[in-house]
C-alpha cells in the first residue's frame, strides 16, 4: 500500500464526504450543532488541495499532511479527532502501510483524544469493529461492513461525549454523525484499497 494508493483512499473519502455532506449535517442537526458535514467537507477539500499542491513523497508524509490539514481546517471536534487519527497513523506507518496496524494507531489516537469508549455513540463505535476485523485477518470489505454495522448500532445509544451528550436520553434514536463519517472512511478504503490493492 503506497503513497499513490493512500492518496486515492483519501480522495475517495473526500468525495464521499462531499456527496454525503447534506446528510451528515442533517444527522448532526438532530443531536449536535449541525456542522459535521460542512466541517468535514471543508477539511477534506483543504486536504485534497494540499495533496495536489505538494504531493507527499511517502505514506508517512502523506498521512501527516492529512492530519495537520484536518486539525487546522475542520473547525469542529472532528478536526482534532480525525487529525489526531491521521497523525498517529503517520507515526505508525513505515514505507509500506499495513492498514490494520495504522488504523489501530489511529483509533487509539481518537480514543486518547476524545476519551470515548465503545458505546458512547461516537466514531469509535464504527472504527472499533472495523479495526478488529482487520486485525483478525478479515478483508477491507469486511471491515467496511463491520464499520457500517457499528455505525447503525449507534442509533439506540445515548450519547456520552460531545455536543450530543447535552441531549442525554433524547440523543437515542438517532444515527451518530461521527460514526457515519467514520464508516465512510472505511467504505473509501474498501473501494480504493480492497482486493489486494
Amino acid at each position: 500500500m503506497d503513497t499513490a494508493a493512500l492518496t486515492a483512499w483519501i480522495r475517495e473519502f473526500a468525495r464521499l464526504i462531499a456527496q454525503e455532506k447534506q446528510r451528515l449535517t442533517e444527522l448532526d442537526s438532530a443531536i449536535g450543532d449541525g456542522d459535521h458535514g460542512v466541517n468535514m467537507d471543508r477539511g477534506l477539500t483543504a486536504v485534497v488541495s494540499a495533496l495536489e499542491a505538494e504531493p507527499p513523497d511517502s505514506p508517512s508524509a502523506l498521512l501527516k499532511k492529512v492530519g495537520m490539514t484536518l486539525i487546522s481546517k475542520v473547525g469542529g471536534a472532528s478536526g482534532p479527532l480525525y487529525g489526531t487519527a491521521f497523525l498517529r497513523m503517520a507515526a505508525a506507518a513505515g514505507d509500506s502501510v499495513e492498514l490494520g496496524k495504522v488504523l489501530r494507531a489511529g483509533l487509539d489516537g481518537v480514543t486518547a483524544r476524545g476519551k470515548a469508549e465503545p458505546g458512547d455513540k461516537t466514531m469509535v463505535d464504527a472504527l472499533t469493529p472495523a479495526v478488529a476485523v482487520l486485525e483478525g485477518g478479515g478483508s477491507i470489505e469486511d471491515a467496511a461492513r463491520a464499520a457500517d454495522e457499528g455505525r447503525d448500532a449507534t442509533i439506540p445509544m445515548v450519547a456520552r461525549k460531545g455536543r450530543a451528550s447535552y441531549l442525554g436520553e433524547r440523543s437515542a434514536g438517532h444515527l451518530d454523525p461521527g460514526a457515519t463519517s467514520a464508516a465512510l472512511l472505511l467504505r473509501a478504503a474498501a473501494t480504493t484499497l480492497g482486493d489486494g490493492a
Partner: protein
Amino acid sequence: MVGLVVVSHSRPLARAAVALAAEMTKGRPLAVEIAAGLDDLDEQTYGTDALAITEAITAADSGDGVVVLMDLGSAVLSAETALELLDDEVREKVVLCPAPLVEGLIAATVAAASGAGRDEVAAEAMAGLAGKESQLGPAPSSASPSLPQEHDGLSATVTVSHPHGLHARPAARLVAEARSFDGALVQLRNATTGSGWVPATSLSRVATLGALQGHDVEIRASGVRAREALGRVAALVVADEASLSTGAVGPTAASPGVAVGPAVHLRETPINLPDHPSLGPEPERQRLTQALDETRRAIAQIRSAEPGIFDAHLLLLDDLVPAADSLIAQGLPAPRAWQTATTDLAADFDSLTDPYQRARAADVRAVGDQVLRALIGAPAPAVTTDAPTGDDAPPAAAGGGVLIAADLTPARAALLDPSRVAGVLLAAGSPTSHAAILIRTRGLPAVVGAGPDVLDIPAGTEIALDGTAGEFAVAPPPPVLASFRERASHEAALRTAARSHASEPAVTVDGVTVAVGANIGDVGDARAAAANGADLAGLVRTEFLFQDRATAPGVDEQVAVYRRIAEALGGRRVTLRTLDAGSDKPVPYLPAPAEANPFLGVRGLRLSLLHPDVFADQLLAVVRVAREAPVSLMFPMVTTVDELRRARLLLDEAVARDGAGRPPDLRVGMMVEVPAAALRAADFVPYADFLSVGTNDLTQYTLAAERGNAALASLASGLDPAVERLVGEVCRAAGDRVPVAVCGELAADERAVPRLLAAGVRQLSVAPALVPLVKQTVRCVEVPR
C-alpha cells in the same frame, strides 16, 4: 508574567471575553492571545484550529509559561492536540485549564497581572465559578469538587477586624500564610452569612466569603501543623501584621490602671438568618420597627458613655430605615431586608475615598448588627472562656478576667462590665479610638495595638497588663507578676486616696491651685461631675440637645436643660460650649455641604456663623441662664479674630434681644484647637475672658494625624512636643490677663499633667469619673518657677 490563550469557537466571543477581563486590570500589561474561529474565514464561522492554538501559545509565552482557557468541545480537543504539537520544553510550561471560559478568564487575568505563577493562575481560574456558586448555591447536579464536610481537625471562630473586610491585601496575606503550611488543610467559612467552606489557599475563593469587618469567620484545620496553621490564619483573619504594624507602636497604653487576671475572649454567636419567607410587608415592617425600638432603647441606655458616638449610631438607624422598608415592600422578610440595607450602606461608605467617611462603614455594621440580632433574637456578644483554638484550658474565674479581642465596637465597649472584666487587651485599635475612649470612661485598664498573637492566648492563661505604661505580660513569672501587682496596689492606693480627697481643691506640692473640672455631655454627667468633686464644668458639649431631632431646640427648651445642668452642679461654674457640629457630626436641620475632609470643613463656630438664627437662639438661652448661675460661654473651632468678634457681636445682639442688660457674671471665651489660633493667641486675648485648649483637635491638626486612625496612634497619643510648644505659646500670650484651661484627653494623662501645669495651664477638665484621680495627680506635681 504568565501568558493567557483564549480558545473559542467564536472569534467575537473570545475578543469580547478578553475585553471584559481587561477591565479588571485597567491598563496593566497582559499577554493574552486569541485562537478562535477559523483563520481564513469570516468572523461568523465557528471553529477551532489546533495550529492556531500552538501559534497563540508561542506568542503568549514570555518564559513564565501559558495558561490556556477554552470554551468547549473542539476547543478542548484542539487545545490538547496543539499541546501534542509543541516542543517538550514549551509544553511543560503550558497548563490547559478546565475553568469556565468567561469567569475563568477574568480570575486568571487578575492573577496573571498580579504576577502569579501559572499553576496559581489556573487555580484562580478554576475558582472563578465560586462567586456564582456562593450567590446561587451549587447546581443540583453540580460536579464541582466539594470539600469534605466531615471534619475531625481543629476549629476556631474569629471576628474580622480589617476595616474593609477580608479582601485584597489582607486576603492575599492570609492565603500566602495558609499556603506556607503545606502539610495542613485549612478551610474558612463566613459564619455570619452562612457561606460554605472554602480552602484558605485560594485567593478568589477566600474573596467569595464576603467576610466584612465584624463578620465571624470559622476556621478549621487538619493535618500536620494544623494547630500552628489555625493560629496563624486566625490571627490574619482578625488583622494582618502589616496593618497592625503601620503605626509601628506595638502595645500602647489606652486606659490607665493595672489588671491581673485570666484571659477571656469575646465570643459572638454568629447570626444565622432564618429562611422563612416574608409574612407580608406590613407584619415584616412591624417586626423591624420593634427591633429598631429595642435597639434605640439599648443605645439610649449606654448613650451617656459617649453621646457623640451613640447619637451618630441613632442617626444611622434613621438612614437605613427607608432602604429596608422598600426591600420589605418588594417581598423580602425583615431580617434579609435589613441585612441588605446595612450591607449596601456600609459598602457605600467603603467606596468613598475619604478615610473618615469610610470609617463610618464600621459604625453602620456595628449598629446594623445590633438591629439584626434584635430581629432574630440572637444573643448579644458575650465574654466567654472558650479558647480560640479549642484548647481544654482551665475555665477563667467568674470575675476579673482580662478581655482579649481584636477590637471592640463602641456598643460592646460601653457594655463592658467592670465586675467581670478587670482589663482589656486589644490586638488592634488605637488609644484615641471610640472604643478606647469608652473603656476609659468605664475606668478599665487597657492596652491596645498588642498584635494578632494575643488572640491565640488560650483562655485562662494569666495576663498582667498595665494600661498606664502600655505593657502586658502573658503567664508572667513570679517576679514580673509581683511587679505588676505592686503597680496595681499602688494604683489602688492612689484611687482610694483620690476618692477620699475628691471634693478638696487640687493644690500642687508648691501651693499652686489648679481647678479640675468635668467634661459634660448631658444632665447625668453633670450629676456625676458633682458627685466626683469637680470644681466646675469645664466643657458642656451642647450637641446632645441638637442631635437626633428634626428641628433645632427652641430657646425655652435650651434654657430648661442648661438650668438643670447648672442645678446639678450646685453653684459651680458651667462652661457652655456653643454647638460644635459639622459634616463629621451632622445635624439634619443645619445642612452642611458634602465635604472631602469634614475635620477641615465647616464645623464648630464656622457652622454656627452660617446659621445665625439657630446660633442666636442658643446665645439667647445662654444669656438667660447666665442670670441665674455662674456661666461661661465658649466658642469652638475659632480660627481668626474676626470670627470671634462676629460671634461676640451676635452675643451682644442676644443680650439686647433679652433686654435685661449683660449678665454680670457671664464670661466669654474660646477653644484653642486650631494651630493658627494657638500661634496668634495674643491677638485673641483682648476679646476673650479665658482660653481653653482642646488638645484632641489641636493635636490632630498640628500633627496632620486623624485621631481615629489606628495606624497613626503613635502621632496622636500623648503630649507631642510640638503641641506642648503651642500650649506654652498660648499660656505666654495669656499671661496673667486670662486663664488657660485644657479640656482634651491630655488633661487626664498623668504624664502630661505636670508638663501642662509647667507651661502655665491652671485649669483641667476631664471625664467626670477621672476628676478625683486627676486632682490626686495634680497634688503630686511641683510646678517649676
